[in-house]
């Protein structure tokens, strides 16, 4: 009955459209590119002219032709098809890793911030120790011992990256927890879990989401670098980093084909970062006005 008295609020969809329209050119470009990649990754088998591991030519390193638009790779597989399947593999692995590390890191970070004391000290010291070694070095060491299966790769990177989510969610949660409305909830007699879910989480979510985007890029680049070094995703799975490595010999002959997967990596990472940058600027602008 009171609903009639409400001023007509714009629906979420129209709000979203308005938001996207107001984005700067770089962010629009970023969103467009990201969508295109998602499309290619989802429908890879329909788009790719040949199979992922199908040997289609007796000629390795064949040049560009009508039949094989980007030529063939070192084993005579269609380069374009592997590029398209690579989108699916590289993106999905990075995405899974990001989501795992986001979940672990944010849960522990908020937990540490709320509980404080000894638990916080122990968790924070462990995170400090993990962060005191450059990621790549740590990953290389563990992978060499455990072996480079995809599951190992995902878990190791997820755990190491979760330290960043831990740090940022803990700091943000501590910030929000010092505000009066959290104290008011404590005084009201609310439990810690209720406070975390209802009072704190909605307020740190925008920050965590932009961190999520940024970390996705770093994870994506890290996996590519590992595959490029030959210790990441193993053949015959098509992956952009290892495609660069396998065909690097062509570069010395002045052929740019091996650089295409590298450019594909760069383009997606640039696109995502443009979107994240816009979100961050928006968030900081809002707090300045408030």
């Amino acid at each position, binding site marked *: 009955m*009171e609903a009639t008295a409400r001023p007509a*609020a714009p629906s979420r969809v129209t709000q979203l459209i308005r938001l996207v329209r107001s984005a700067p050119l770089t962010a629009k470009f970023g969103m467009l590119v990201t969508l295109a990649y998602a499309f290619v990754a989802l429908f890879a088998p329909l788009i790719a002219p040949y199979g992922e591991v199908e040997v289609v030519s007796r000629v390795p390193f064949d040049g560009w032709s009508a039949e094989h638009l980007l030529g063939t790779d070192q084993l005579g597989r269609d380069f374009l098809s592997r590029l398209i399947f690579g989108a699916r593999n590289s993106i999905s692995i990075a995405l899974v890793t990001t989501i795992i590390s986001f979940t672990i890191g944010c849960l522990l970070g908020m937990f540490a911030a709320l509980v404080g004391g000894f638990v916080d000290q122990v968790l924070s010291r462990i995170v400090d120790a993990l962060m005191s070694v450059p990621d790549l070095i740590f990953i290389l060491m563990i992978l060499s011992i455990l072996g480079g299966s995809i599951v190992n790769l995902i878990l190791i990177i997820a755990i190491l990256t979760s330290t960043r989510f831990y740090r940022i969610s803990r700091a943000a949660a501590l910030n929000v927890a010092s505000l*009066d*409305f959290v104290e*008011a909830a404590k005084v*009201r007699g609310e439990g810690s879990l209720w406070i975390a879910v*209802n009072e704190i989480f*909605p*307020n740190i979510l925008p920050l965590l989401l932009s961190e999520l985007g940024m970390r996705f890029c770093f994870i994506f680049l890290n996996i590519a670098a590992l595959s490029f070094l030959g210790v990441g995703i193993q053949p015959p799975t098509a992956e952009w980093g290892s495609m660069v490595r396998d065909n690097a010999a062509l570069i010395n002959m002045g052929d740019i084909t091996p650089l295409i997967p590298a450019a594909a990596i760069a383009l997606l990472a640039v696109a995502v970062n443009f979107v994240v940058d816009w979100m961050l600027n928006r968030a900081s602008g809002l707090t300045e006005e408030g």
Partner: protein
Amino acid sequence: MASPVIEINDLRIDAKANDEWSAIVRGVTLAIHPGEVLGLVGESGAGKSTIGLAALGYLRPGARVSGGTVRLQGQDLFAIPEDERRRFRGTKVAYVAQSAQAAFNPAHRLMDQIVMVAVDRGGLTRAEAEARAVALFTALKLPDPAQFGSRFPHQVSGGQLQRAMVAMAMICNPALIVFDEPTTALDVTTQVEVLISIRNVIRDFGVAAIYITHDLAVVAQIAHRVAVLRHGVVVEEAPIAQIMDAPQHPYTKTLWAVHEMPVDTSATHLQKGAPLLTISRLSARYKQFEVLQDINLQIGRGETVALVGESGSGKSTLGRVIVGLKEPSGGSLTYDGEPLPPLVSRRSLGTIRRVQIIYQSADTALNPRHTVRKILGRPLALYHGLRGARREARIQELLRMVELDPTHADRLPGQLSGGQKQRVAIARALAADPELIICDEITSALDKVVQAEVLRMLLELQARLGVSYLFITHDIEVVRAVADRVVVMQSGRIVEQGAKAEVFAPPHQPYTETLLASVPDMAVGWLDRIIAERAA
């Protein structure tokens, strides 16, 4: 007749918010003659600071002049490029900021910061400038003037730093100084000292000044003339005596709203039954530091107790102890005859419900991502198990109690004004059906007229609901308006308590005397009297 130091003519300034320009100063005309002090009075957001900064030819980022002129000694400041405008600042016109603690650079010694302009552009040698600075330190009654400048900002107290900033503004003997709320961040007893210094320096050096403040009582001690500003427009400009004695504009009159609230001196509230809350021999500490010592206090049903003291007196800590956020180190709390467990986590929901707290800043006390409905609905569900239509009906009722429109239930706090937010916070406390509400400086962030409305509403609610209030405040005016009993705190101890009439009537306990004597009267000449008394 000398020409004006500064002439502001039909000045219009826009600010950018959400990619749209909106006017924040809408055609202001002012002139100040040599040696004259103009008070610029208005509530937050009236455009006072923007005008003050424009007198220095400065605009904050995201602001632009859309019309009018600012002439400093005849020079139109906004007609020349920023690089030329800049040369007037520090030498011809200087600025004193609200918080000296934030406005001094922590990396440099005070003397380096104070003499910099004089040496760079004021034509003085370093030695001359330092000698002048030491002379100013002496005039401003700073301790150990010869050595004072060798300190870093963090090594000096807030009141001293504020005076050091006055010295910095005076170093080039400017024609005009803009004081932007220079005493607002200080405690009342410190405020008096800084006010005296400012007034003496202005008179002795004959400098013209713009004195920006929201506090009429302060400006009455300093200014010759006052311009009252609202929504970027001067609504009234007159000599100070006329503003104080016979304000013309309706808006100007509202600045007396709290001052003129009817004071109930009858003792009806004091006929109380059994005390609701009894605090006896209570102490609390942060690490080694004793913040509360030997606190004995009773609050009766339907009574309003005002807890008065300066920052650091422990009054807010006492509030936190009562609601169970801070564990006392000794003593006891008794509520309605039962011992009250020290921490909120050990109190039953039923006990918690009976004592509620309202915070100073509704901006931080309301979750910005919850609607008003959710904010009010939660205590209803938690304490009373209300759901669905019954909860909704109660939300509507609460909104009406705090004089808000029922449609506000769908709003987020960001879509409400400061006064409306504080009303929502009050409604949230009322949702629990409490017996005691702790009000922690709840009106100090509000404009005068809103303050008066909120206080009146709280008193009406008290008459209807029989609730008790503990008002934690530093504002004597608020105490006079609402309190039945007054408790004065200093350095963690209660130094005096009693019925309002007793505490406010002489003879006073020494600290209460100082405190009361430091609050400026709403009248011209109060500061002169203080100075005269001290000289005697």
